[in-house]
């Protein structure tokens, strides 16, 4: 399975996250179908021949049947990625035990998603990482499913600023 042939079904009501994931995967050559209604999932999976399902964990609990269990039972080859706003080891284990292949926290680290989605040959030749890194502007991906912004107030006071040279330019 190469990235250009892979088809992804993205199930998420978080529009900002879904847009970012959709765009990131589309740039890398994936075909992405977005859906915000879990009730449509069975029909979409039956008709769409998706390779990957990426779903918010909250969306898996809306129907009577657990979507992870249902998807695993009915689409054995489907790769399942579950997203959550919470970086929870318990939730991670729970999703994996139900049949999910990967658990990621939001906002989704697209590099981590790449490691999971791209076959080995695509990873070694650059693949998604190269496109996400924006050429030479790129920075090595962060480790871990989530990252915390380390923005702190580092300035002692809001008073007038000096005019000396600072930073990297």
């Amino acid at each position, binding site marked *: 399975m190469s990235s250009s042939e892979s088809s992804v079904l993205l199930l998420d009501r978080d529009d900002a996250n879904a847009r970012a994931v959709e*765009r990131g995967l589309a740039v890398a050559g994936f075909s992405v179908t977005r859906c915000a209604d879990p009730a449509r999932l069975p029909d979409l999976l039956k008709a769409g021949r998706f390779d990957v399902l990426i779903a918010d964990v909250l969306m898996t609990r809306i129907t009577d049947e657990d979507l992870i269990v249902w998807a695993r039972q009915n689409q054995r080859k489907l790769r399942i990625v579950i997203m959550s706003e919470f970086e929870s080891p318990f939730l991670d284990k729970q999703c994996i035990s139900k049949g999910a292949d990967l658990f990621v926290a939001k906002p989704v680290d697209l590099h981590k998603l790449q490691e999971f989605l791209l076959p080995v040959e695509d990873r070694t030749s650059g693949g998604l990482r190269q496109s996400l890194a924006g050429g030479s502007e790129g920075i090595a991906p962060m480790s871990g499913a989530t990252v915390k912004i380390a*923005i702190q107030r*580092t300035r002692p006071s809001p008073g007038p600023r000096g005019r000396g*040279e600072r930073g*990297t330019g």
Partner: protein
Amino acid sequence: MSMPRILIVEDEPVVAMSLRRHLTTWGYHVVGQAVRGEQAVVLAKEFEPDLVLMDIQLVGDIDGIEAASQIRAQSDAAVIFLTGYSDSKMFARARITEPYGYLIKPVLPKDLLHTIETALQRRARERGSGKMNSA
């Protein structure tokens, strides 16, 4: 579909690095990084970013609000202010430049992502409707 191009204007290296890493991880293309307002105006003209993440208090002769005003006069880049301070005078000044967002540090990653995506969506809509004029 292409990756949105973002310019970071931040004079705190640690914050700038953190922003850059997050934006890259989320699939955005960081086209440049400025530490002074004057530099931001030049880089915005050169790289034509879709969006500028702008710290307000910067070293140099002009602050982030003035830099945003100059950038908006020459391009249709969406500007989101990121500041450690939130006094009403500063906010009133910032509002005049019609920013697409105003975030107080520290910022939660999901709040940053949501603000960026909302801004990009609004910008695309405004460009589509012809409300904004290219420089």
